């Protein structure tokens, strides 16, 4: 039931510019503090980063003059093997870790989406890895992968394999970074999928069952299509999150050995605070920013609608 004070009526009442829903007061004073914060610590830094990216800008004054080079930093990046390396590592990370997380999370949600003893406890405990501090997670994984006393090697040695220096070799270090992320984040996918599944009406699945659909058909022809918006939201959230991964990897490997786990943020960090080249690192920051905005805007436009929220909540 929609009340008379629902959004549909207020829209016509207060259609004017900056006019209140009840024609009373103005939203501007309510918005100003948040807008000031956003300007000071988001918009201005973005503009400033773009400005800096047009310069050869060494951090310390003694390291050389500050010179305007236009888009020179962007050209430098396009020829920098370190940049491409970090981009490939980042894309590889997204294309390997996220599909695994999505599949694991979805399958677990399917399996655990029923009543069983201790079900609530299992679901609650599964939340803990998601909220495990990233820094602590990186440290714990670094510990588990230690060649001499780490748990994984203890297990392998007990099984008769030689101890491996996981984080000292390029390939295994990269795999470990991915494993860490999968371990921590598939339960995140699970949470969202589980909530999505719980929202599917039982009758829908029962109807399919009565029509003789096999379990596989029910999953592929009923559950996945109905769950599609949730799947898409989750995927986009994971991509946006994966684009900014830093602390876990920084603590686990510091981007090494060599450049083998220098994901995008780690390389930006290295250029800025290792090589002290603020202009070049700002160019990377702008690149990352544009990439993230593309995904974020897609997510926001596809999945979050103010009007829809109001349709659901406004009538109450």
């Amino acid at each position, binding site marked *: 039931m929609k009340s008379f*004070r629902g959004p549909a009526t*207020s829209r016509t009442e207060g*259609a004017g510019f900056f*006019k*209140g*829903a*009840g024609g009373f007061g103005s*939203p501007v004073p*309510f918005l100003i*503090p*948040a807008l000031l*914060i*956003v300007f*000071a610590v*988001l918009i201005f*830094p*973005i503009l*400033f*980063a773009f400005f800096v990216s047009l310069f050869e800008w060494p951090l310390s004054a003694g390291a050389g003059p500050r010179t305007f080079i236009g888009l020179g930093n962007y050209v430098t990046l396009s020829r920098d093997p370190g940049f491409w390396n970090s981009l490939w590592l980042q894309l590889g990370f997204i294309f390997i870790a996220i599909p695994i997380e999505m599949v694991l999370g979805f399958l677990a949600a399917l*399996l655990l989406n029923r009543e069983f003893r201790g079900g609530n406890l*299992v679901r*609650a*405990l*599964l*939340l*803990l*890895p*998601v*909220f*495990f501090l*990233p*820094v*602590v997670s990186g*440290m714990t*994984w670094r510990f588990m992968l230690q060649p*001499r006393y780490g748990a994984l090697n*203890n297990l392998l040695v007990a099984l008769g394999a030689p101890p491996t220096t996981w984080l000292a070799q390029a390939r295994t270090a990269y795999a470990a970074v991915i494993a860490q992320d999968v371990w921590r984040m598939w*339960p995140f996918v699970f*949470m969202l999928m589980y*909530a999505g599944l719980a929202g599917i009406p039982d009758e829908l699945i029962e109807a399919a*069952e009565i029509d003789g659909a096999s379990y596989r058909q029910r999953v592929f022809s009923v559950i996945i299509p109905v769950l599609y918006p949730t799947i898409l*939201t989750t995927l986009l959230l*994971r991509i*946006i999150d994966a*684009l*900014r991964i*830093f602390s876990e990897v*920084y603590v686990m490997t510091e981007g090494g050995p060599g450049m083998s786990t220098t994901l995008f943020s780690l390389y930006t*960090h290295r250029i800025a*605070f290792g090589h002290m080249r603020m202009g070049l*690192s700002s160019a990377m920051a*702008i690149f*990352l*920013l544009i990439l*993230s905005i593309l995904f*974020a805007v897609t997510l926001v436009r596809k999945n979050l609608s*103010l009007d829809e*929220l109001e349709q*659901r909540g406004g009538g*109450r």
Partner: protein
Amino acid sequence: MILTLSSRRKLITVAIGFFAGLILLIELYPIGITLLNGFRRDIVILSGQGFSFDQITGRSYEMVFANRQYMAGLWNSVVVGLLSTALSVSFGAMAAYGISRFRFAGRNVLAYSFLVFRMLPQMSLVVALYMMFRAIGLRDTIWGITLAHTSFNAPYVIWLLIPFFITVDRAFEEAAMIDGCSRWKTFLLVFVPLARPGLVVAAVFSFINSWNEFLYALILTGVRAKTAPVAVSGMIGGEVLTWGQMCAASSIMLAPVFIFTLWMQKYLIRGISVGGVKG
């Protein structure tokens, strides 16, 4: 669901129980060893020997509590968390109120921009923030890092609160305004008390966001304003021989997060749907 045979049903239940147990074992093992190693001596951990109850000791905790750097970090984390939460929740609640109670040109664009801002990678902003803060003397100050944390918390709070606010009935506010209350008085005296559950959730989540945050703290703070995650990561340095202390220090960091997580369970989905988990 229609079930054919009760024996088949039992089998499925057993299989699922087994499967759930296995998942939990894998997912909780790293957390478990972190909590456990906080209570073991470094020498025991480094020797790689198995666990037995006589290894348990509070030694690492004693050393962590005596570690000034870490304790200062912990204190800074609490202060920054509280300040940034206070700023984000008050400004965020006002903005969310403005968005959910008024209709104005550009309202949708504004609301969506807040959400997009929330999702920007910290790395894309931190270089500029570092240079700005250095220029105006905010680097390595509590206020600097608080402001940086507010940059992701305020947009987050706005989007966490909008759905809460929409469900609060306008009738009370309208009655108050008819009785002659100004918008501000109505907001503070009528609306805020009604919206308190949402505000609590928003406060808890922004505190956790700030508590867990690492990158801004790493770059924007130094000796004075260093927060606990940076202090913990500083313990690694080279070949670590103090795992016990690191695990104890980490466990102290984890405690509030886990408590809040379990307490806020029913709001978690909403909490993570508006911008993932902050690293």
